[in-house]
């Protein structure tokens, strides 16, 4: 056994750090990086009669020629955009509201976070009941108020923004906003009170305080959550899958990840796994380019 003194001083200094790292690295390597590499390899292969062989760009050509490919991208972007409007702005303003409250703060924070604790499938099944065109709560309310009822997630329109996608986004926002709200709230509470006092002395109203103090002071958190939310919403799947079976009427809620799922699991053929892998790689590239560009832009600004 060699003496610790034989190790280089730098290695010795960082030994415990490497020790801590190793668990994470092994987990990432096994469960993230290796599958990603396999996915990329698979996307250039085909499997027939148990034999896997190289297929060049066949899988990529197939997915680009699939008529639902562009529909799925269009829907995914629609969801991302609507989720930004609803899911990004709503938690921010709810956080500001919670921060301003003097009473029942803990109770309301708990209330806002509660939906996050529900398993997504349960929360979405709840909304599936709300949206049911025959027995649903929302149509019951509209009916009681003598207002026209809706097909909600089963609406057939395909023109942006579709009623179906707005319904999906409302459910997704309700389900997920608690987490973002708490993060905003934490950021808001780090803003020194003196800034607001000074602004008040200068005669600033609530809008000016938000614009000139709150937003600039929470810019870093907003920027990080924006990135995370866009990456998450581009991978929309479970929401539409439970609410309307995934595709929606006239494919108006079919997303890219749902299409991957369809290729991989619903079409029951081994060769479709390779097409699913190809579509997964395309999505990975789009998100990687977006994330890289976003990080580069925000870094430039910081400088």
């Amino acid at each position, binding site marked *: 056994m060699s003496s610790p003194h034989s190790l280089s001083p730098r290695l010795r200094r960082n030994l415990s750090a490497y020790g801590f790292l190793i668990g994470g690295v092994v987990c990432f390597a096994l*469960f*993230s990086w290796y*599958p*990603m*590499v*396999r*996915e990329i390899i*698979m996307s250039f292969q*085909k*499997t*027939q*009669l*148990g034999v*896997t062989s190289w297929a060049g760009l*066949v899988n990529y050509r*197939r997915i680009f020629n*699939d*008529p639902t490919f562009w529909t799925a991208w269009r829907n995914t972007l629609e969801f991302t955009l609507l989720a930004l409007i609803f899911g990004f702005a709503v938690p921010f303003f709810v956080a500001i509201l919670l921060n301003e409250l003097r009473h029942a703060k803990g109770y309301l924070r708990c209330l806002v976070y509660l939906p996050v604790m529900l398993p*997504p*499938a349960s929360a979405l099944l709840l909304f599936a009941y709300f949206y*049911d*065109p*025959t*027995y649903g709560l929302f149509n019951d309310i509209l009916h009681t108020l003598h207002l026209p009822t809706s*097909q909600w*997630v*089963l*609406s*057939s329109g395909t023109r942006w923004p579709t009623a179906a996608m707005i319904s999906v986004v409302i459910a997704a926002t309700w389900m997920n906003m608690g987490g973002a709200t708490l993060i905003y709230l934490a950021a808001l509470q780090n803003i020194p009170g003196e800034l607001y006092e000074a602004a008040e002395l200068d005669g600033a109203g609530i809008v000016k305080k938000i614009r000139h103090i709150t937003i600039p002071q929470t810019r870093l958190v907003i920027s990080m959550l924006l990135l995370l939310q866009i990456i998450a919403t581009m*991978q929309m*799947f*479970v929401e539409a*899958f*439970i609410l*309307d*079976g995934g*595709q*929606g*009427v*006239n*494919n108006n809620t079919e997303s890219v*990840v749902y299409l*991957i*799922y369809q290729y*991989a*699991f*619903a*079409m*029951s*053929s*081994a*060769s*479709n*796994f390779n*097409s*699913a*892998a190809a579509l*997964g790689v395309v*999505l*990975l590239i789009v998100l990687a380019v977006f994330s890289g560009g976003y990080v580069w832009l925000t870094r430039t600004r910081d400088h």
Partner: protein
Amino acid sequence: MHRRLHGRAGYRKVAGVTVAAALGLAAVAACSSSSTTSASTASDTGHVTVGGFCAPPSSSPVPYKEWNEDVATFEKANPNITIQSIYSAQCDVPATLTAQLAAGTEPDVYETYFGDLNQALDAGQAADITQYVNSTTVPVWKDIVPSAIAPVTAGKTLYGIPIFNYTQGLVINRQLFTQAGLNPNTPPTTWAQVETDATAITKLGNGIYGYGDYSADNNGGWHFTSELDANGGAMTNAAGTTASFDTTQGMQVLNALHTLRFTDKAMSATEALGWGTLQKQMAAGKLGMYIAAPDDIYQVIVPIDGGNVNDYGMGPLPSVSGTPAGTLSGGDAYLFAKRDTPAQIEAGIKWINFQDLTLGQGQYNLARNKAVGLPVGFYEPQMFQGATGTAYTALLNKYTTINESYYSTFVNANETPDGQPADDQALYKTLDPVMLSVLTNPNANIPQLLAGATAGVNQILANSSGG
């Protein structure tokens, strides 16, 4: 006969969600691993454990008890064999099976639908069992109908053993027919009659609808295929290379459904329904008619959903002419994992023969089923011809408990079984949105929907044949 609760083309949403959520993108790659695992292996002592057989869940106490009795009897007679069962209401969930085959983690013996052999072969996970099946190991083999053996055969190689088959007809709620002033002994045979009867039933109110159909989880495309077959159409050409449903027959089916939903208002506004939903509505007395195989009644509506067996009957599939030209037909078969040892294959076949293919025992222990109060006497499965077929009919007649006249128009129609189209699940998936649109969009452009689906299906078929 009461063992397996078949999902057919579909799968339950929650199961799908679990798979999707747990696996995600990375799983597409992870599941491709060609490594195989098996919890069941033959030991050096000659003892063999074989697993994967589809058993009723404990929530169906009577069939569950019967299954366990059968396992105990079999293991007592074959002390060197241990049978491992999968207790599930639906053993063949297509999404799960596809993932298992891709990963090589399917059970030693796995239940499949008749259309699944190609994907098992593509994944390299189906063992050749030709040499193991003969008149000694499966005495009734020569009498099994050829339409049940074809789906487990490729060329001259046998890959599986069929255990169940079905065709489809129109399940009716006789109670609702009577309440609506209709004669339940003459179920409708044309789409026009279905409209009239469904409208009358819907007028009963109280959340009751005359007709129901699927439009999610590949079940919409599955039912469209059967309705098209009945109308004299077919999903693809004979070679299975191009779509052939954008025809008058296809239009007639979709127009009939659209009229039922929006003109007659005889279908619910709640659509995007998958397998399992219409059975519940039927059991609850809220649905007048839907298309299904007879086992929906005796395996799901009565034992699981609590319906009264005397409330149901069946007619032939609706068509424009009133005489169905054909029906989608399918069934279940056990395939064997490629990694299985010869001892496991032999043990598996022995159990399947005992449980599923011997008159008087296992699923055909009709005396026991009658004694415990399970309904007996349904027309399907019709697995046998020749001497076994005659013996089966005699057995059925001896123990029948249901009123067979409730099913006479279905039985007399003697529908031609058309099997299932090539690349069936992919085709069903492509037709699901068409069905959903027809059932939810009052302004659905049916010619456009059919043209769009045709383009999609042609691409799928070109891809399967071209690799």
